[in-house]
């Protein structure tokens, strides 16, 4: 299937919605740094970043820079679209899984369990967003 050769490069990603709670994440993204939150009390990391820990309800989660490495938990290649693209979850080496797109690759060759690494993709008039490509 030749159209699986397409990558998500052609799919334009809208600017992410930003609020007071998420602004530090997107400010760091503009500098090319990927942040997650880890609770200063129970020590568990979580995703997406919150002010309150979803595990122990502490108000002490702290920003932590992550190398953005992990494995593909699952994915789906979307053909019901002008440009095929891959959406899926990556389980970060720190533990949490995050929704993302897979880019710069042959979409027909993606595999669950495959190692991937984060990169930032520009958006339309907004902060760049975390996406992943084969490591």
């Amino acid at each position, binding site marked *: 299937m030749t159209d699986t050769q397409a990558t998500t490069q052609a799919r334009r*990603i809208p600017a992410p919605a930003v609020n007071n709670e998420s602004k530090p994440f997107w400010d760091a993204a503009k500098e090319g740094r990927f942040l997650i939150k880890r609770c200063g009390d129970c020590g568990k990391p979580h995703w997406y970043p919150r002010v309150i820990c979803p*595990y122990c309800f502490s108000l002490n989660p702290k920003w932590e820079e992550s190398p953005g490495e992990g494995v593909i938990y699952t994915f*789906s290649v979307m053909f019901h679209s002008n440009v095929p693209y891959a959406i899926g979850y990556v389980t*970060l080496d720190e533990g949490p899984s995050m929704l993302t797109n897979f880019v710069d690759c042959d979409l027909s060759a993606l595999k669950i369990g495959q190692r991937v690494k984060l990169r930032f993709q520009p958006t339309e008039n907004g902060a760049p967003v975390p996406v992943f490509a084969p490591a």
Partner: protein
Amino acid sequence: MSIKGKAYIGGVFEHPTREAIGYSTPQLHAECAKGALEDAGLSKDDIDGYFCAGDAPGFGAMSMADYMGLKLRHMDSTETGGSSYILHVGHAAEAIAAGKCSVALVTLAGRPRSMRGGGMGGGRGPGGPPGGGFSDVPEAGFENIYGGSTHNTYGMCAARHMYEYGTTSEQLAWIKVAASHHAQWNEHAMLREVVTVEDVLNSPMIATPLHRMDCCVISDGGGAVIVVSPEVAKSLNRPKVKIIGAGEAPKGPRGGNDLDLTYSGAVWSGPAAFEEAGVKPADMKYASIYDSFTITVLMQIEDLGFCKKGEGGKFVADGNLISGVGKLPFNTDGGGLCNNHPTNRGGITKVIEAVRQLRGEAHPKVQVPSCDLAIAHGTGGSLGTRHGAATVIMERE
């Protein structure tokens, strides 16, 4: 307190339209309400409780209550996407058991087909995939950018289920095949042609691994259910369908460490409902199982306990869901896969077909003999991100 035996289904109605050109959405809700009242033999002024979800135009329950001229002493607009109306039946039974109302109306209606994207999105509240302009929906900024849709978020679930359990596209296709066998007898069904496993596998790929025929239809329409107290039920000239158990639960990634897309919230709502009802999955004569996609059915059948986790593929294969053929007759109206999926939300039609089966009023070709116990179960929102599960168990008295 249990709801077991404290409330009955008094009336149901499924709107016959599938493309509601020339209708307004409030009108569809009201026509469904009128149909369910006529089915029950009740009048509008008997209604003292009203239940609706995000497809009801206006502000919670209030705009539609006012439009229909209802005088209420109880209202509930809990929103869990397509499963809302199954959940509402449970909530209505609770309210009736607590003496808060005695005739509860539940409505669903909408026009996503004729409005072509301008209608209320089903199972997709603000912050759900995709789009969402509400920056204060907590996950919005981190998820809505990735092009998530119902097709591909359910596709992700199917891909992981296949990876962990060896489930195949052929097995998923059997779910559509069974639905099509039922839909051929339903004059209102959108897709009445009986299809084969090969037909499903040869239909275009929509979002891997789901083909077009793994997906439900897009339709206008609606439905209504009236839940009544035992005293009201006794006064009605209709077969008695008693609510004996209900359960509900939300499920999501909860900080990303709980992500497991191989099961649904049915693992919680199902056991709660079965325990309250005092029955087991094997006792069910008929099952209405939400079928937004074939994978939705397979996962929920496992999670409700009809078979072991991971064995859903084997369970649904070879016609096991076809009425008169297999062990678990499901969605005998053709379901969302073939009949309708009004306003992109299938919950109410799941309750309605279960009630038809329990009354002996399903199409003769699909009616389950001596059908005295049935389950209606749904998933609303997205199986691949966060969703609400709702289960209701009903018994013919």
